[in-house]
């Protein structure tokens, strides 16, 4: 180190400046931050580092946190969000829990009341560390500015390594203002944190290869671990070498190109029937970076019940948690696949099984009514997929029917291009996540496929998109209802509408039973999304006729700034297939 640097490294700095410089040193180039009384010193410091770090002001802290997730999910880098104490901090909670369940690397920085006031029920005081213990990978309350350089190192290290997750750094205001001679070389103190996975035991790799060689009906079940582990290439190689069909979880979409013949698409509750049947029929389930979530397995005992199970995950707690594995392997899926690809051989006679899978695929395709002259949600998504196939496109979604249709009908070919709140299922994820993707990938086309329920949970972020020049597109599949709940009402509750209509309460749809016509629209539409979007400065239009769809999508895609395309759709279209919660593949509803 040069003398000049050494001198600079020991200068007196405030906690706020140390924190912001740490962000820069960790390669953060964008963060989402909403100021308040207890975070102002950090915001002042952010202005001093404006050349290397862009600060985006969201319109709600939750929006900021999901934007940070969008940044993290699309790039693999740690997403950073900042909020003030109390309500600012608690507004992050949902997005933190979301990041924990989907293993998204985040550093969440919250202001806190001065250390002397902690515990006194001060104005805007919330015990944020206490609130967040169960929903963070780790958490810090910084009580001494001297600890800060070490804590920031640890926070980024913990967030990004092993199984990624959110880390909270709670910063009391007096710590932000305190000055100290900084030692940037301070080591981390994490004796209990050993994220480096064990080297893959050759014996385990041999076992897996032998099981594959012996299998007659093998299938790969791949998840978000492939994406977090940057193992898509290795996964592809495994499929190419062995010819084994592959199905992915909702988190795993994009891990393997959906356009490939051996892709059996998504499995689970709303997965493709052929994927679920193939898992039912398999004799070897090769589970890679997955956690046997209940939305995938349904009734656990019946899931892949005749299969031998290989389970590879970086988090040892996932092994044998929900489903016992015959060959459990704790390790980095990329390392395991790299080693496996060196020795693996194709099963001896796979042709009948692959043929069986292809027959299932032909017999039970994902489908919808193509005769209907209005626009069905699936059709809108298929058209968008078709139009954007060759573009650098990212898709985000809210939660509900539109999310599942996007998972089914948009054919993802690359990892990190599909962003969905999958574990927590947070409505309102789509728009702010898209905003974060756009900030991280300025030239890309970022489309939030959303529902009118989800969209309104973070609609205020249209302002951020406009003001921060983030040209996000919103494809709003507007059925005026909470469609997924409506679907359950239709299927299991005699179509009794229980607070699932989003218009004025004097409308017919709000009370009692709705029309039986599958293609019914909710009329007297509310609210006027085009006027709202325009009010925020975005481009907008609304369509209802099928004939107008393609042009409208093109106009949306080509629009320079943020744009909302309000697509009026019927409200009794159901997401199929469907395996009702806790049941088995044999209970799958196809019609």
């Amino acid at each position, binding site marked *: 180190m040069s003398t000049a640097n050494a001198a600079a490294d020991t200068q007196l700095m405030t906690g706020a400046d140390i924190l912001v410089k740490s962000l820069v040193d960790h390669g953060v180039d964008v963060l989402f931050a909403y100021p308040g009384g207890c975070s102002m010193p950090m915001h002042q410091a952010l202005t001093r580092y404006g050349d290397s770090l862009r600060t985006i002001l969201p319109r709600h802290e939750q929006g900021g946190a999901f934007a940070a997730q969008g940044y993290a999910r699309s790039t693999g880098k740690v997403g950073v969000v900042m909020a003030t104490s109390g309500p600012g901090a608690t507004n992050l909670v949902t997005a933190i829990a979301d990041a924990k369940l989907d293993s998204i690397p985040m550093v969440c920085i919250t202001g806190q009341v001065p250390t002397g006031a902690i515990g006194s029920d001060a104005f805007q005081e919330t015990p944020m560390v206490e609130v967040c213990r169960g929903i963070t990978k780790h958490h810090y309350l910084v009580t001494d500015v001297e600890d800060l350089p070490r804590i920031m190192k640890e926070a980024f290290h913990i967030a990004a390594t092993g199984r990624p997750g959110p880390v909270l750094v709670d910063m009391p205001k007096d710590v932000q203002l305190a000055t100290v001679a900084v030692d940037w070389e301070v080591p981390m103190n994490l004796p*209990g944190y050993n994220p480096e996975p064990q080297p893959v035991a050759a014996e385990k790799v041999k076992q897996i290869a032998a099981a594959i060689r012996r299998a007659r009906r093998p299938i790969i079940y791949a998840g978000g671990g492939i994406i977090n582990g940057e193992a898509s290439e290795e996964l592809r190689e495994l499929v190419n070498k062995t010819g084994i069909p592959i199905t992915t979880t909702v988190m795993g979409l994009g891990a393997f190109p959906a356009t490939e013949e051996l892709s059996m698409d998504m499995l689970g509750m709303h997965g493709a029937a052929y994927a679920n049947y193939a898992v039912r029929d398999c004799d070897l389930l090769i589970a890679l970076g997955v956690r046997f979530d209940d939305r995938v397995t349904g009734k656990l005992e019946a899931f892949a019940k005749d299969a031998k199970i290989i389970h590879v995950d970086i988090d*040892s*707690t996932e092994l044998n948690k929900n489903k016992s594995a015959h060959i459990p392997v704790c390790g980095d899926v990329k390392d395991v696949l790299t080693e496996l690809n060196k020795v693996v051989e194709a099963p001896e006679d796979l042709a009948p099984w692959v043929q069986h899978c292809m027959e299932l695929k032909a017999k039970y395709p994902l489908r919808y009514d193509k005769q209907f002259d209005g626009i069905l949600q699936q059709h809108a998504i298929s058209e968008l997929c078709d139009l954007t196939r060759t573009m650098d496109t990212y898709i985000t979604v809210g939660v509900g029917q539109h999310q599942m249709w996007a998972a089914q009908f948009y054919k993802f070919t690359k990892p990190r291009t599909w962003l969905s709140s999958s574990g927590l299922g947070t409505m309102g994820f789509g728009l702010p996540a898209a905003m974060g993707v756009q900030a991280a990938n300025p030239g890309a086309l970022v489309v939030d496929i959303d529902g009118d329920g989800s969209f309104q949970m973070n609609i205020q972020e249209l302002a951020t998109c406009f003001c921060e020049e983030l040209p996000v597109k919103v494809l709003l599949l507007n059925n005026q209802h909470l469609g997924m709940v409506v679907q359950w009402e239709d299927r299991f509750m005699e179509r009794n509408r229980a607070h699932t209509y989003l218009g004025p309460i004097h409308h017919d749809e709000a009370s009692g039973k709705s029309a039986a016509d599958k293609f019914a629209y909710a009329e007297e539409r509310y609210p006027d999304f085009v006027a709202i979007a325009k009010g925020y400065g975005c481009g907008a239009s609304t369509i209802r006729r099928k004939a107008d769809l393609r042009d409208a999508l093109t106009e949306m895609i080509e629009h320079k700034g943020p744009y909302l395309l309000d697509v009026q759709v019927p409200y009794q279209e159901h997401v199929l297939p469907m395996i009702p919660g806790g049941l088995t593949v044999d209970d799958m509803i196809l019609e």
Partner: protein
Amino acid sequence: MRHVLSALVQNVPGVLAHISGMLASRGYNIDSLAVGETEHHDLSRMTFVVVGDERVLDQVRKQLEKIVTVVKVEDVSARDYVERDLILMKVKAPAGSVRSEIRELVDIFRGRIVDVGPEEIMIEISGRENKIEAFVDRMRPYGITELVRTGRIAMVRSVSDEEATEPTDDEASVSSRA
């Protein structure tokens, strides 16, 4: 199955809350939990008694290890170990024959009388769980007015071939090694 887990943890604020919160939110039943500093002031030792099958135990152990501030977790009960629990209790003991009866029982159980009042005495006793429980049962008829216990602590024995053949009676082994 009853298991005794011993966890070495970083001695930092909130570590106990973190661990107990994790156990509670995942629905694990903990019979006993004891915490204290070790010979290194930056490390603490937590001893858990967990009841459950191998699968539950495996999950509890791994979930504990996943907590960043937990350095190491050991299933002490899978090995040859010494376990202790310390209790303090007040028992009704008016001067006279009852009091001497109690004194005799305290001697047999190798406890100690640590305070004597006009109507009751305070007893200190330590040992394995079954011994403590047997003693508590013996005291019940006299009237226990207050009882407090530390929770179980445990330590794995030093391993050597000769020692492995020694009698496993804890009290005996402890005195023979003292």
